[in-house]
C-alpha cells in the first residue's frame, strides 16, 4: 500500500520543502486547476445535454450541419473534417509527451523541437476551428423561421436534397433598404438584412411545385427530419416571418436557436483554451531556447504546461463526441 507521505526520519517535517503526495506544489496546483476546469466544461456540456433532452424530438442532426471538407466544395463529407482535427490535436499531445520525456533526460534541443511541433499542431487546430466557424456562420442553403421559432428548410420532392434560397426565390420590387445611422435614427441599429424577403421566398416556393418543406421534427422510427407533403408545405410557408441565412446568436438556419448558442459557446470556450495553451507553450518554448530550465536543473515547467495541453485534448474528445457523434 502506497502511503500518502514519505516518512522522513531525522528531518524536520515542519521545515518546509516537503512534497506531499510526491508531487511538487506547481504540479499539484496545475492538477487542481484542471479538476476545476473539468467541472466547468462538464457544466457546459451537461447544460447542452439538458437543452437537447428538452428538445429531444427536434434537435438538429450533426451530419446535416457539419459536412464541409476543405477543397471538396459541395461534396457531402460529414465528420471527416472533425475527425482530422481530433487527430491533429491528439498528435500534438503526443509531441508534448515526447517533449516532457526529453525534459526528464535534460535533452534541450529535443525538448525545443517537440515543443515547436506541439505549437504548430495547436495553431493548425485553432485555424481549423476558425474554418469550421466560418462555414457554420455563413451557412449554405438558408431557411425561414415561423412565428413560433420553428426553422423550415427546403428540399426537392424527388431526391429530398436541400435547396438553397437563391435557387428558387423570386424577385419582387421592394422599398426596404438597410437602415444606417447616418440616414435614419442615429441611436437605432439594425443587423444586416437577409438577401431575400419573406414574400420573395413565399412566392418562389409557390411557383416551384417540386419543392417541399423539411421541418425541425425528427421521425422517431427513421431518425430523419420529417418532410411535409406539398399541401402541408404550402400551408406552412404562409406562416414564415423571418428569412434566416447562416447562424448568429439569435437564430440559425440549422434548427433550434439554442443549438448555435451552445456550439459557439462550448467550441469557442474550448478554442480559447487551445489558443491560451499555444501562447503558454510559446512562452515555455522560448524559455527552453534561452536555457532557463537547463540552468534550473529540471524541466518541470514543460511537464506542467504539458498537463494543461493534454487537458485541452481531453476536453476536445468529449466535445467531439457530444457535438458531432451523438
Amino acid at each position, binding site marked *: 500500500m502506497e502511503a500518502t507521505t514519505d516518512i522522513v526520519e531525522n528531518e524536520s517535517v515542519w521545515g518546509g520543502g516537503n512534497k506531499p*503526495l510526491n508531487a511538487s506544489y506547481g504540479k499539484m496546483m496545475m492538477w487542481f486547476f484542471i*479538476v476545476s476546469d473539468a*467541472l466547468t466544461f462538464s457544466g457546459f456540456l451537461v447544460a447542452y445535454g439538458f*437543452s437537447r433532452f*428538452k428538445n429531444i424530438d427536434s434537435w438538429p442532426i450533426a451530419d446535416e450541419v457539419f459536412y464541409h471538407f476543405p477543397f471538396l466544395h459541395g461534396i457531402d463529407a460529414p465528420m471527416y473534417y472533425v*475527425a482530422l482535427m481530433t487527430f491533429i490535436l491528439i498528435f500534438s499531445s503526443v509531441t508534448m509527451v515526447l517533449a516532457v520525456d526529453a525534459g526528464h533526460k535534460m535533452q534541450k534541443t529535443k525538448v525545443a523541437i517537440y515543443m515547436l511541433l506541439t505549437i504548430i499542431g495547436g495553431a493548425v487546430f485553432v485555424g481549423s476551428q476558425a474554418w469550421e466557424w466560418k462555414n457554420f456562420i455563413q451557412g449554405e442553403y438558408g431557411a425561414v423561421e415561423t412565428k413560433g421559432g420553428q426553422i423550415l428548410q427546403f428540399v426537392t420532392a424527388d431526391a429530398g436534397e436541400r435547396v438553397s434560397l437563391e435557387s428558387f426565390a423570386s424577385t419582387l420590387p421592394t422599398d426596404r433598404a438597410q437602415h444606417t445611422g447616418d440616414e435614419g435614427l442615429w441611436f437605432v441599429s439594425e443587423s444586416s438584412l437577409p438577401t431575400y424577403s419573406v414574400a420573395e421566398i413565399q412566392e418562389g416556393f409557390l411557383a416551384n411545385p417540386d419543392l417541399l418543406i423539411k421541418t425541425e421534427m425528427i421521425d422517431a422510427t427513421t431518425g430523419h427530419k420529417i418532410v411535409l407533403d406539398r399541401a402541408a408545405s404550402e400551408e406552412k410557408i404562409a406562416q414564415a416571418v423571418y428569412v434566416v441565412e447562416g447562424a448568429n446568436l439569435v437564430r440559425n438556419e440549422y434548427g433550434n436557436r439554442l443549438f448555435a448558442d451552445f456550439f459557439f459557446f462550448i467550441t469557442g470556450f474550448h478554442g480559447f483554451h487551445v489558443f491560451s495553451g499555444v501562447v503558454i507553450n510559446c512562452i515555455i518554448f522560448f524559455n527552453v531556447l534561452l536555457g532557463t530550465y537547463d540552468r534550473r536543473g529540471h524541466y518541470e515547467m514543460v511537464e506542467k504546461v504539458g498537463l494543461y495541453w493534454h487537458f485541452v485534448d481531453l476536453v476536445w474528445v468529449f466535445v467531439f463526441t457530444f457535438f458531432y457523434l451523438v
Partner: protein
Amino acid sequence: MAHKLSIFRGLVTFKSNIQKIWGVLVFLSIVTAVEVALGIIKPSFLLTPVLGMKGLNWVFIILTLVKAYYIAWDFMHLRDERRSFTSSIVLPLLILIPYLIFILLVEADYIYNVMLDGFVSWNF
C-alpha cells in the same frame, strides 16, 4: 524517473516510455477511427434504444471514456503518480459529474413531457 510501462492491465508492455507513447497514440487513433466509421455507417442493429438512448450513442460515450482514460493515465501520466494523488483528482470528478448529469437530464426529460402533453402549442 520510473515509468510504469504496461497498458491494458499488463497485456502490452513497452521497452521505453517513448515506445509507450507511440503505442497509446496508435490505440487512440484506432478508437477515433472506429468512432468515425460507426458514425458514418450507423449500423441498424445499434440504432435500437437501450436505457433511453440509441445503442450507438452508448457505444460512442463508452469509447470516449476509454480515450479519456488513456489520455489521463498515459499522456498526463497519472499512472506514474501516487494512488492517493490520482484519487484526489479523479474521485471528485467521478462523483460530481454523474450526479450533475443525472439531475439535469431527468429534469430536461420532465420539461420535454410537460411541453409535449401541455395544452400550449409550440409549433406554429
